[in-house]
């Protein structure tokens, strides 16, 4: 599916740029953005090292184990077929907690680690498992206590009460999380067979 999205965006941009005469901008974007991606990775790299290092300490001290056990009633139901005490579930748990607290910079490295560990544990061989899909849906539904970046931008824009959107945000993300979980469960059997 990523194939179609990737190709679709590029083809669409080309056709549209040709029609509106923005080919020069398009050309420049293609050149500069590739370098931009490397810059982005460099900034992400430090975070990846930091949080993977901290994660390893937390594992060695038994902190992740305690956290995983605390959340295991939830994770056991969501991630079928994963060892509840394994590395995958503990990284996933840390990621979900980081996301909930709004620590986006920590959440991404932990999430990448979780999916890599799931791949190893379930011998997925290039094919997403139900647990991986569920995990990604939980990540994209974005349930967070306080959307700090949004709040900050609202402060800058001169909002009277920047956090008055909190109840609405919780309601919207809660319902979208429920819809995502339901969709992941209901759609999984449809992609069971190799296409």
């Amino acid at each position, binding site marked *: 599916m990523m194939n179609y999205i990737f190709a679709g965006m590029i083809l669409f941009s080309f056709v549209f740029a040709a029609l509106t005469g923005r080919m020069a901008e398009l050309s420049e974007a293609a050149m500069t953005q590739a370098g931009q991606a490397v810059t982005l990775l460099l900034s992400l790299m430090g975070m990846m090292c930091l949080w993977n*290092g901290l994660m390893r300490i937390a594992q060695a001290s038994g902190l992740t184990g305690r956290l995983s056990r605390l959340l295991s009633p939830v994770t056991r139901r969501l991630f079928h077929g994963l060892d509840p005490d394994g590395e995958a579930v503990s990284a996933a748990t840390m990621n979900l907690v980081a996301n909930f607290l709004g620590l986006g910079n920590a959440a991404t490295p932990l999430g990448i680690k979780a999916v890599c560990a799931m791949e190893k544990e379930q011998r997925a061989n290039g094919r997403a498992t139900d647990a991986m899909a569920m995990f990604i849906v939980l990540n994209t539904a974005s349930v967070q206590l306080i959307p700090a970046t949004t709040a900050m931008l609202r402060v800058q824009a001169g909002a009277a009460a920047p956090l008055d959107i909190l109840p609405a945000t919780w309601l919207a993300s809660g319902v979208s999380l429920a819809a995502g979980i339901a969709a992941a469960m209901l759609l999984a059997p449809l992609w069971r067979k190799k296409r």
Partner: protein
Amino acid sequence: MTAFGVWAIPTAVVLIVGYGLIKGVRVFEVFLEGAKEGLEMSWRILPALVALVVAVGMFKASGGLDLLSFALSPLGRLLGLPREVMPLALMRPVSGSGAMVVFTDLLKTCGPDSTIGRIASVMMGATETTFYTVALYYGAAHVRDTRHTIPAALTADITGFFMSALAVRLLF
């Protein structure tokens, strides 16, 4: 709120390192092992990152966002989304920084305390950059067949957009 944001990361770091010390973990050496693994993982996500950042950059440069927002605004109306927030709904799943730019513009033109400004704010808080997440996580794990991941994640996103508009109308 800002106090929480400022304290959260340092507190988490101190908690992890401090607890490790108490439990007798050789924190520095263990940290280095993990950090090395993080480095390897970073290299694995680079190809996916280049692909996505270039595609999104080209899409933005072509000016296609406005056209697509216009074309999809009937669908937006169906979900109760005002025409003004459509570009945000389209940008949000593909690019975090792109969505931030669109969002900041919206706050400036419509005001943070208008209905549109509030809907946009809730949308920002209640959804994530789905395609970026999928590309990064699966890129690192070498997953090619994403199966039902994208349809399920988009279901969550679309529900999030719909609920954002509804929640703002209900609660304000």
